[in-house]
């Protein structure tokens, strides 16, 4: 079925969801690019991060385009022009990156969530969204492999192990809002076939998978503990429009850039 054939009263909820996942990708790409471009630990990692960041920007565009076509707005308006209070991204992606282990742990958590959401859209009934989800899913394999390979390798040294360990709890807690969509929005997504599964089952699949992956590392945190952080009460909840000061700072940077545009 097409997006336009869905009932008018569900369009707002669907747009809210699409903007939320677009904001996720857009801010993840922005953070990766601004933190690691020309600052990567090796040239190879530098290009890998830039490449992943560009993929994320491309995924953001996929969803902004759908919303922009429905409203009388441009992709740039949606990406750069919206104030923090209207953003619905997870706070996981807005926090500034620390070291490489922090980036790798956050990437693993983020890409695992993205995969679950995209796969559910791919299984959904709305063709325009399912086909776009397939395009993004195709690129996500590399993102997950990259993070997984570093998770396996960083703990090879004691320093790397310690850095991975300290990155897990703050990132897992910040990710607790990833599936905390407004309950009405979540109900619409399943009822209208935007997602081929309900949001709660997606959250379970994601929390189970990522807590096993991270808890299987030689770190002082069990899969059960990690799962409890991922499933804790989100504070703040980005899906409800609650954000950290970091998002204000990113927004100021974007708006200064826009003001300088000819």
């Amino acid at each position, binding site marked *: 079925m097409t997006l336009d054939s869905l009932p008018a009263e569900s369009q707002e909820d669907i747009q809210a969801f699409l903007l939320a996942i677009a904001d996720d990708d857009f801010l993840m790409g922005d953070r990766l690019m601004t933190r690691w471009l020309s*600052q*990567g*630990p*090796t*040239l*190879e*990692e530098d*290009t*890998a991060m830039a*490449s992943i960041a560009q993929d994320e920007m491309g995924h953001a565009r996929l969803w902004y385009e759908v919303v922009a076509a429905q409203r009388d707005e441009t992709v740039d308006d949606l990406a750069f022009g919206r104030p923090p209070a209207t953003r619905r991204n997870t706070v996981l992606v807005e926090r500034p990156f*620390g*070291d*490489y*282990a*922090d980036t790798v742990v956050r990437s693993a958590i983020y890409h695992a969530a993205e995969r679950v959401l995209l796969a559910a859209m791919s299984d959904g009934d709305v063709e325009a969204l399912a086909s776009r989800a397939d395009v993004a899913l195709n690129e996500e394999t*590399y993102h997950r*492999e*990259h993070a997984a*390979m*570093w998770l396996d*390798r*960083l703990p*090879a*040294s004691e320093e*790397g192990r310690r850095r991975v360990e300290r990155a897990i709890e703050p990132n897992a807690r910040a990710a607790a809002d990833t599936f905390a969509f407004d309950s009405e929005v979540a109900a619409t997504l399943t009822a209208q076939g935007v997602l081929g599964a309900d949001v709660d089952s997606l959250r379970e699949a994601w929390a189970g998978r990522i807590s096993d992956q991270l808890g299987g590392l030689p770190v002082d945190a069990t899969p059960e503990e990690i799962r409890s952080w991922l499933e804790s009460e989100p504070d703040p909840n980005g899906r409800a429009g609650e954000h950290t000061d970091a998002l204000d700072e990113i927004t100021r940077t974007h708006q200064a850039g826009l003001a300088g545009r000819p």
Partner: protein
Amino acid sequence: MEDTRDDSPTGGEERFDVFVQWQRGKPHEYAETILAPDAEMALLHAKRNIDVRGDPLSIWVAPQNAMAKSAANDPALRPSTDRSYRQPAGYSAGGGEGE
């Protein structure tokens, strides 16, 4: 949080040569040299670096120090006598006596 930008994440990268086959039946050709902690990670980087440039069929990586390489201007690679008689072009095909 500490800044790690001067540190390599594992502290032990090595050089890998990357070879790409672009067409079926054609040889793999040298494409680039990359740094990685091991072969698996080298292949991940190589696949990504190469696939954004074209449509490769297959990619190999090999640690540079695992390959024996001839020296530049190795005299053994330069023929000392005229070897043109070894070229097939030196022989005519057919049309000889008795035919």
